């Protein structure tokens, strides 16, 4: 396993404990609960979409630092993107965590979410990092 500070870094800790994205959105267009029955992590994503653009996103729920921070940073990354752009970024993030995506150009599009790169070396925490990303993937695919 990597050094702990590679995963529990400043950015992830800040987002996990005190996220400005943890709030409710009034009149959200989409709302979906994602949960991880093994560890009890639960997050609810709320989403506003205008045309083909994600205009607002927020989350509520509880879980470990990795799942909470991953959700919050995902919101920062995807807010303002088009649905197609978002889908591409989601694919890249999941690929990165599963160690399938190494294309540097693509990884750069993850912005802050690249901070979770080292979770790929922690099999026990992969699910935590992916929870929000799978949840939004479902929302966008079902849309």
């Amino acid at each position, binding site marked *: *396993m990597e050094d*702990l500070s590679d*995963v*529990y870094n400043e950015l992830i*800790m*800040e987002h*996990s*404990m*005190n996220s400005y994205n943890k709030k409710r959105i009034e009149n959200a267009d989409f709302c979906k609960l994602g949960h991880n029955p*093994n*560890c*009890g992590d639960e997050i609810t994503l709320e989403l506003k979409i205008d045309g083909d653009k994600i205009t607002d996103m927020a989350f509520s729920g*509880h*879980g*470990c*630092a*990795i799942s909470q921070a991953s959700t919050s940073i995902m919101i920062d990354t995807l807010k303002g993107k088009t649905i197609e752009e978002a889908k591409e970024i989601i694919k890249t993030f999941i690929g990165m965590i599963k160690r399938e995506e190494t294309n540097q150009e693509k990884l750069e599009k993850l912005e802050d979410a690249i901070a979770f790169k080292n979770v790929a070396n*922690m099999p*026990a*925490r992969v699910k*935590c990092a992916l929870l929000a990303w799978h949840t939004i993937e479902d929302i966008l695919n079902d849309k």
Partner: protein
Amino acid sequence: MDIENIKKDFPILENRKITYLDNGATTQKPIQVIKSIEEFYKKYNSNPHRGAYSLSIETTEEYENTRNKIAKFINAKQSQEIVFSKNATESLNLIAYSYGMENLKKDDEVVISIMEHHSNLVPWQKVVKLTSSKLNYMYMNDQFELSDEEIESKITDKTKIVGITHVSNVLGTINNIKRIIKYAHKKGAIVIVDASQSIPHMPIDVQDLDCDFLVFSGHKMLAPLGIGVLYGKKEILNKMTPFLMGGDMIEYVYEQETRFAPLPNKFEAGTQNVEAVIGLGAAIDYINNIGYDKIQEIENNIVQYAIAELSKLNYLDLYLTPNKENHSAVISFNIKGVHPHDVATILDTEGICIRSGNHCAQPLMRYLGIDSTCRASFYIYNTKNDVDKLVNALNKAYTMFKKYIVK
């Protein structure tokens, strides 16, 4: 025998530089158990109860000797009352289906405690639905114990089955099962005891308890994975129909009908996990050799030390009864404001194995108003040094998180 000598019997503790504090999930195995399995395959392997040749007869003898050993170990009247299963979960399912389904009528009640593991809870949900009976819960008080008032208000004349864990796998509470059994019998109910978390730590006497059923898993008491035990009173087991059908559980099979074998074979369909049965026998020998007195002396020392040391950490919430005599070798705790999975990950980097999560007890977690806990559970090879390592690692985790914790 002292702890250092006991520790030497467990190769994994030498081979891996770990502090193993997840004994509530499964214990490590002593070399004596590991060797018994090797010896079985080198000298005895064949299918018991089948062959007319001497090798198979010897296998059968080994297999049945272990049954006798278990009967003696828990003081059953006779070895026919011992049935082998896959684990405690399978034993409980057997009871739920073969006893529960056939005996529960509309409006009857099944009573369990809020401390139950899902294995003594989910099967009952299904059986009460199918029989239109009801599932009621005994809740604990603020000392994490079941009070006499609670027991007497929940077990009523309508109660037909009481399922109770001897020791909670989350709280470590030792339930007063003898009292529960006595009261339930007065009300005409039968009692199933889940001894999975107690039998590794304390002697069990099924005749003294007068329980109707008792179940446990071998792997939590030094034996291999994949072997469980069901004890049932003979007169009750005799009236029950088999749970699984197939080979070795029959007397005569006709095209449309079957006459089942007598106890205990009628509950042991198909080729059993014989190597694990042999391993369980070796585990019982190992426990008997140390003796429960010694086991309890070692554990009390460690657990009381752990409680004292963890109590000093003011950033921890502890979930355990203040009554020392009612507490076993499991300690659940949380660093206030930090999720147990993060704590477990940080402890893992120090080689410390603890469990984090809901411990297959979601209704209990909900009742406690939490999602999950960290759980350290101890056994005979744990030392005070292990506790010190745990405390140091917790301090490290707290230091990492404290400036971010939202008060």
